[in-house]
């Protein structure tokens, strides 16, 4: 899983973020400090399809 920094409290916004552990990544995602690099919601399991 790849992550991107959102908040400058963690680093430079837009830069990639390498979490030290899955727990750290979960806490930072919950706090809105980072996002997943693919832009998907953490709860989205399949990509939406065009109709």
């Amino acid at each position: 899983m790849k992550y991107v920094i959102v908040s400058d409290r963690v680093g430079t916004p837009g830069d990639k973020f390498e979490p030290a552990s899955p727990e750290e990544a979960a806490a930072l995602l919950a706090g809105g400090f980072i996002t997943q690099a693919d832009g998907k919601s953490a709860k989205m399991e399949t990509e939406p399809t065009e109709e």
Partner: protein
Amino acid sequence: MATSTYLSNPVVKIGAVDISDQCTGATINQKTTALDSTAFGDTAMKNVAGLQDNSIDLELYWSTAASETYATLKSLIGTSVNVTVQGSSAATSATNPLGTLTGGYLEEIPVEYKVGELAKVSITFKGGTFAWSES
């Protein structure tokens, strides 16, 4: 006599989050428990080193704005995290050592609201190993 005066420079990080601008106090408690090893024949108490019993206390303003104190702490209660405290943001060195508590456990988040005052929270990260780094 040379002393180190810190007015507003210390840097405090909880995990990867730099929370310095919400922090008004940080106390590093580096402790190794003393075990009593006094025996017959001794004329004074003696001790040997037991387990480390480290902790870091932080005083924080309780900001619930995005990317502030609440967002930092809300997922950490009941978990262990690394906490770092350094005298200034300058490079880590022998005169600006970086203190790291690895695996400090956050047991509670006691938020305090008082009329006429900014809301605050005093938290303690307990346990874990502590080390100073000079590079």
